């Protein structure tokens, strides 16, 4: 089938999409956007988190066909061109990135949290990121990164 969807502000079309394909597969294998990651493919790890019409979703649980006519934003689309969003900047600076496989999903989840709650408490951060597994960091520096990004937003 043909899938036409808006990804990071640009209308994109893919042909011969198998109906069983996930939005994650569409993005990664057909549209050249491998930023969303394929760690569990059953909605447990959050590595594939993207926005679908402004709502964060696990792209592995969304059928490609469900994205038809809707707007998808991936980690590649959070900041224009070569620039970094403050959340991305904070993840680098705080040492929240090790292997980095969880990072795109966590960046999108943190981006969503700060858009809703500009100055989150620690329990609020933990609750918001509870759907994103990280195996390397023990989460401490990820929490640091979210706190840093929140402070930066507050002062700008």
């Amino acid at each position, binding site marked *: 089938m043909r899938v036409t969807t808006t990804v990071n502000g640009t209308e994109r079309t893919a042909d011969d999409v198998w109906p069983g394909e996930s939005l994650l597969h569409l993005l990664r294998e057909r549209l050249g956007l*491998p930023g969303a990651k394929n760690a569990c493919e059953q909605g447990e790890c959050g590595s594939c988190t993207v926005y679908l019409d402004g709502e964060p979703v696990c792209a592995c649980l969304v059928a490609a066909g469900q994205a038809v006519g809707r707007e998808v934003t991936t980690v590649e689309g959070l900041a224009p061109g070569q620039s970094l*969003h403050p959340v991305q*900047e904070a993840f680098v*600076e705080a040492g929240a990135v*090790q292997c*980095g496989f*969880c990072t795109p999903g966590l960046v999108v989840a943190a981006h969503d949290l700060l858009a809703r709650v500009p100055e989150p408490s620690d329990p609020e951060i933990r609750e918001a990121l509870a759907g994103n597994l990280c*195996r390397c*960091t023990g989460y401490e520096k990820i929490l640091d990164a979210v706190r840093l990004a929140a402070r930066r937003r507050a002062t700008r």
Partner: protein
Amino acid sequence: MTTAQTAARTTGRIGENAQRPDGTLKVTGEFAYASDLWHDDMVWGVTLRSPHPHARIRRIDVTEALTVPGVSAVLTADDVPGENAFGLEHADQPVLAAEFVRYEGEPVALVAADHPETARRAAARIRVDYEVLPALTDARRALDDDAPLVHPGGNLVRHLRLRRGAERPTAPVVVSLDFEVGMQDQAFLGPESGLAVPAEDGGVDLYVATQWLHVDQRQICLALGMPPEKVRLTLAGVGGAFGGREDLSVHVHACLLALRTGRPVKMSYGREESFHGHVHRHPATMTYEFGAECDGTLVYARAHVLLDGGAYASSTAAVVGNAGTLGLGPYRFPSVAVDAYGVFTHNPPCGAMRGFGCVQAAFAHEALMDELAAAVGVDPVEIRRRNGVQEGDRNITGQVIDSAAPVAELLQRVADLPLPPALPEQPDLRDLPGAVGNTTHGEGVRRGVGYSVTYKNVGFSEGFDDYSTARVRLQVTGGEAVATVHTAAAEVGQGLVTVQQQIARTELGVEQVVVVPADTAVGSAGSTSASRQTYVTGGAVKAACEAVRTAVLQRAAIALGRPVAGLALDGDKVVGAGGEVLAGLADVLGDDAVEETVEWRHRPTHAVDPETGQGDAHVQFAFSAHRAVVDVDTELGLVKVVALDTAQDVGKAINPDAVVGQIHGGSAQGMGLALMEEVVVTDGHVRNPSFTDYLLPTVLDVPPMRVEVLEYADPHAPYGVRGVGEPPTISSGPAVAAAVRAACGKPLRRVPIRPEHITCT
């Protein structure tokens, strides 16, 4: 809102918090992991795996699979051109099962097709006629006379026998216990993946996520029947490893399909296949006995450790080596009798995972130290302080610990950290065991505190030739001095790329350091394992930089007519002893590049005596201590870890932030094994191969973690570094288990601790 992109160009010398050169790519989604690789005309490879833990293969019929439109190849054991065998220490594992399958999930056939779903459907049409055979799935039966044989040579992989001191020691206080540790999964997030591209010379180029390119290359060459120059490997982006990428996964399979189809082949496991596609941490059954004086001073230890190696050898022999030589913890024992066994079963193969044999043993020896403390009436910190090794002591293999061994200080450091406040009268649900499950408002909740201390060998042991190779080039490009570092060392997330840059900046005085992709075009760097790369590849990079610096300064000395002795490099300049500028580097080098390649070795280790286990088996020891604080809902058996604090001696923190990050992550993995992580295997079948059913700690499970970093330089190591990655994974779990025991008063002789163990229901 956006800001200007931080350039991937970073700064920082050793001891500074240099940022990762790959950090920007990783936060923007541009970093190319192995599963992101893509080639214009590539096809997808999938694996058909055995559903049985033990069976004879009577016949394989691929006819129907070949008729599926879009399928370009179906391969079985008959299609392996070289030796149908691989393995880290012994080539005992078939690339594709031929006559027998020996564990559930063993690869049997391969399919290449134009879409992964097509390949999976075709694989489902391969007809394998199995004769199911009795399976040996209880490691405790493996050495019985009537046990089914997993391999013709018997079911013993290794027995390490260790004897020291008195033959029949006695002591006024004797404590003993049995302990079991479940099977833990590395659960790296990036699934096993690779892209094999057939080359014009008849060889193949493989881009793959791995921990040691050259040991992969050796095994692939054996299976393909090709020389190393025809099998070239490049490290693809690695999404975590933790030991689970030491053994081959997609490697040979992708190459076989690429060579057969003449097209690039991508393979990438889903999570369920990943659980079957890599080795796990050995489950352990242990019996320990300690004898002590009435004041708690240890007199002797007896230990029996049984590790279930599963169906193939993998690194079981080396894991047994660690469980035996290090399996009593960092304590002084005048007399010791240890027997550590690794055995074959028809369970999933087990091998390397962070902590490597020390993790299992630590649960037993730390639980027993707490028993001893209770028996002689001292507290858990004091019993460890009283018996902890010190620099200059001999450990249980008779090896002198010849650098810092700060057991007592590490314990004191964590003991001195403030304890978290008690739960308030009306606690926030999120701070309670069960959290927003609303299972308690504080009633039935008891707090417990537990301590643990450990030590771990750094680098490969028992006489292994454990070297690394580094190639460093210095040249002036666009008026700026640029150093290029080339090694085959695998960056798996730990930050070795950053460390390499920091070392080159320090040694060559340059700012701009490029670390080129790791590949087999340069000599082996050894494995990214055993907490060894900062030490060994760091040592190689340092040595190569020193060679480059010497060569450049010799040129400068000739050009300037001055002795080499007073010259140094500083950025783009050659300077004198007082820092005065004597020449531009460009004036000395012109368009030339100075390049040196160095193979670097740490001091040798030695095999242990086969009868007594005595010998200088290890090159370095790394120590850490943990204190865990937990709240336990004693009625429901739910645990909330409140704090998990570490003190660790790292010798020299090349990158302090990255060191702390390693300790955080390692601590969380140890906590996971104590409380939730287990690959459940019954009758040889994995029951929970998914992240829905295999529980990993989330950000709600892991508590705030304070880290005290000590830097007692090891005089034998480059910059005094000590391996960092593994010790926290060893000591955190036993501290958590001890804290749960302290809270609920139950003996808890098995991990992961389940609710029913706490409630005894």
